[in-house]
Structures are given as structure tokens and as C-alpha cells.
């Protein structure tokens, strides 16, 4: 009976809003995918025979606050975004942007030439170029016919 009273009432929707707020804060907070279903940053990967290009959106984060490391074929992007500091008397109307620490690891399907990896940062987008290691580049095998 209590549920019937609450449904459609403001209380229910504000509870849902709080849940949503909690989720958006959690988005940035966890270190591994095992903790929460969401990850940050999301990545897009382009690939070719010569290697891969990884792009991630990290708005509001300065290049010096991002740490990129490569171990064998695993790329790890780490960083944090601080929340806006509000002074006394200031109020928040909307908080949709998350903040906190993040770690994202990607396992690449090939070995990488570590000293040729380049990372660029522009307008809040991180772009990492990962050339395939020479030994792993696909080799054309010519077919010789036996007659």
C-alpha cells in the first residue's frame, strides 16, 4: 500500500534522481571493471597492418594529469579529475560531470614497438598511436606452385 502511495509522487522520482547522481559519480571512481559495470574513459580503436590508434575522450583533464603506460601488449591510461571547489554560499544546480580517479587498461591484439608509441592530447581528446612490433607484422607468404 505504501508503494502505491509513493508511485507517481515526487518522492519516487527524486529517489531515482539521487540514484542517477550516485551512478554518475561512481562512473569515474572505480579502478577496475570488476567494481562497476561502467568504465572511463571510453575508447575507440582504429587499426591497420602497421598498428593501432587509440582515442579516448578525457575532457577537463590536463595532459599532465594523465599517466599512460605500456607493459608488453597492455596499455594503461590513468588519471583524475578534481571537482570544482565551491566557496561558501555557492550552490550546485546540476552535477552531471563526474570526477575522481580513473584507470583503464586495454589489451592489444598484437605486440607493440614500445619506443615508437606516441601520445597526443588535444581539446580533451587523448590519441595514442601504437605501431606494431616488427616481428609481428603480417608477412606475405608467396605461393610457389609445384609442377
Amino acid at each position: 500500500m505504501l508503494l502505491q502511495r509513493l508511485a507517481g509522487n515526487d518522492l519516487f522520482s527524486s529517489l531515482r534522481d539521487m540514484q542517477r547522481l550516485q551512478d554518475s559519480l561512481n562512473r569515474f571512481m572505480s579502478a577496475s571493471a570488476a567494481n562497476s559495470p561502467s568504465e572511463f574513459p571510453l575508447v575507440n580503436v582504429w587499426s591497420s597492418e602497421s598498428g593501432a590508434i587509440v582515442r579516448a575522450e578525457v575532457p577537463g583533464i590536463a595532459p599532465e594529469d594523465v599517466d599512460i603506460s605500456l607493459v608488453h601488449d597492455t596499455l594503461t591510461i590513468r588519471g583524475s579529475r578534481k571537482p570544482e571547489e565551491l566557496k561558501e554560499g555557492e550552490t550546485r544546480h546540476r552535477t552531471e560531470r563526474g570526477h575522481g580517479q580513473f584507470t583503464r587498461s586495454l589489451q592489444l591484439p598484437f605486440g607493440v614497438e614500445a619506443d615508437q608509441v606516441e601520445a597526443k592530447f588535444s581539446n580533451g581528446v587523448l590519441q595514442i598511436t601504437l605501431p606494431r612490433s616488427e616481428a609481428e607484422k603480417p608477412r606475405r607468404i608467396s605461393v610457389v606452385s609445384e609442377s
Partner: protein
Amino acid sequence: MANELMEMNKQEVVSPDNAEQTRPQKLYTPATDIYETQEQLIVLADMPGVKQDGVDITLEQNILTIYGHVDQPEFPGYSLTYAEYGMGSYRRVFALSNEIDREGIQASVKNGVLKLILPKSKRAMPRKISVKVEE
């Protein structure tokens, strides 16, 4: 539960009148923080990939539209093999109250975040009224 996971991805703009864009580019709603100080309203919108000159801000009557253009990345010789997020421009519309001093609106972009400073008009600023004690 599945719906909450969807929210983590960028949200596409849904136009109230179902008007489509003339160009076939995706349009996303930027995550935005808004907070209020004594004298201003501050709007921070995440628009990664937007350059300073790619921002368009218009104020019509009391409707504020923020638009950020994003160039689609091109990597000749490469193909997109894994995508977790969509790439496109950003747009969001806000209704401002009359308490904003339009002439003083400032906008800046840093690291893909648009910062809008909307100063409150003088009469909207809190004025302390002192209480006299009547003997």
C-alpha cells in the same frame, strides 16, 4: 538496470519537433555542471574534441543554445575496429531566467570543456536588508 548502463554513453540529442539535421552527423548532449555563486551562474559543459573556434553560442529571447563542432577524425589506411563511444558534435539548450545580464556573458574553452559565465543582473543579486529594532 540495463537502462542505467546506457546512460553512461553519450546521449544523442532528441529534437522536440523531430527536426533532423541537414548534415548526417550525430549530435550529442554534453554532460553539464551548473552552479551558482553570489554574482554569477557558471555552466561547465564537457565537449571533448571541440576547439575554441568550433563553439557557437546563441541567446534568443531567454533561450540559450550552446553548440560545439567536432571534426570527424580520419586516419587513412586505418579502419575503425572497436568503438565504445560515438563521435559527433554537441548541442544543448537552456532556458535562462530574466535575472541574467546578457551583455556580460563570457565563454571560454579549455581541454574540451566549455565554460560559460552568466553574470546575474544587479537587481537579482541578494541585497541584505538590515532589520531595525523598534524600541
